[in-house]
């Protein structure tokens, strides 16, 4: 796993989370890094989830991704 791709994924989340929107589909992230292979982005996201830098948020039917620091405290 390229550390550079992980850094870019993280940078994507930090940049996009500056607004009101904090949760993103995995497809948003893939689109945000158009020059990177989709599978490499997904692998980087999984590593960031393992490291608990990112967290899943799910409605039950749909799953989103967000920075752990933005995860609702009461959830």
């Amino acid at each position, binding site marked *: 796993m390229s550390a550079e791709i992980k850094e870019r994924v993280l940078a994507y989340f930090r940049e996009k989370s500056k607004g009101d929107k904090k949760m993103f*589909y*995995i*497809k*948003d992230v893939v689109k945000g890094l158009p020059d990177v292979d*989709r599978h490499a982005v*997904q692998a980087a*996201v*999984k590593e960031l*989830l*393992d490291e608990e830098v990112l967290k*899943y*948020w*799910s*409605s*039950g*039917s*749909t*799953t989103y991704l967000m920075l752990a620091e933005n995860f*609702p405290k*009461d*959830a």
Partner: protein
Amino acid sequence: MTDSKTPLLDELEKGPWPSFVKEIKQAAEKKPAAADLLNQLELSYKDRIGHWKHGGIVGVKGYGSGVIGRYSDRPDLFPNVQAFHTMRVNHPTGWFYKTDALRKLCDIWDKHGSGLTNLHGSTGDAILLGTTTEHLQPCFDDLSEAGFDLGGSGSALRTPSACVGPARCEWACIDSLDICYQATMTLQDQIHRPMFPYKFKIKVSACANDCVSAIARSDLAIMGTWKGRIQVDPAEVRAYADAGLDIRGEVCDLCPTKCMEWSEADRTLVIHDGDCNRCMHCLNVMPKALRPGKERGASILVGGKAPIVQGSLLSWVIVPFMKLEPPYTELFDLIARIQDWWDENGRSRERLGELINRLGMRHFLKAVGLPAVPQMVKHPRTNPYVFFWPEEIDKKEVK
């Protein structure tokens, strides 16, 4: 006048059928959460609005699915259901439990949750209703120790499910239990680590009777079927006729492809197997006389879904016949190609069937490397057009 706190729900205890209200009331004798669940539901009936907030927490350590966060929007009134999360437990294939396994499951849920279960949800999982955030990990640990695992939820592969198949059913053309079990074990990462555009469901029916509703409810349906001639026992056919069965009216005339003829004069049934679409109507009416053909396998269908986001869809055939034997390499390779195409092209919250409708079946077939075959035609003789890819056209001839 009644002094009940739940007069609206009490109505649902009347009548001859089992009542979920009665079950919740029994649970409420031991569990405050069940009591608050009942009272909140009564308020929902009174207000005509749900009082649940949903979403948030997704699972236990290392998992991204299997837990569905539920919170009361009136924790001031119902503090014991402030958090009332659902846990989805991967069911045993075919829903076979030993009694001690069921007892273990219930003991764990009595210890960590509300004691209320839903066996089983439409996904197939054993649904454990109502626990708090602090109990999620300890409950999962106890479930793991008892041999259970969480199922799928969110944008993940949902827990594959299968009919009882060869374990109990004479019609089984494939080992639905083994296929489902192997799919569950092979695709673990897809179940527990959501990375898809939306949910993806795999269901296995061992014959066309489709007892798990694979055609209507799954993105990928594996349907047991056969090749060749239906096996006929002429003596048993005559026995049905002697017993009063109207073979012409109840079998031949109801055959969707009209591939059968009954001769009253010489009391014989003729089947034109080339016209048969293996719907199994005749086999179901005369089980002692007719059996599936000897060469067994499965049809693979895609695109079914229930009506969420867009309308409901029935699956359609993409592989008319696939011989399915362990380790099912051909099947899993095909599933991987299908999921990869959907993952690349699907919009967020777009199911496979919707994507095929949007981009077209020919794009799907080209991407997954399948030939177009007549069995894929959904409505025969309704579409007169033939489409070619540009590279298929000989430029000299076109000129």
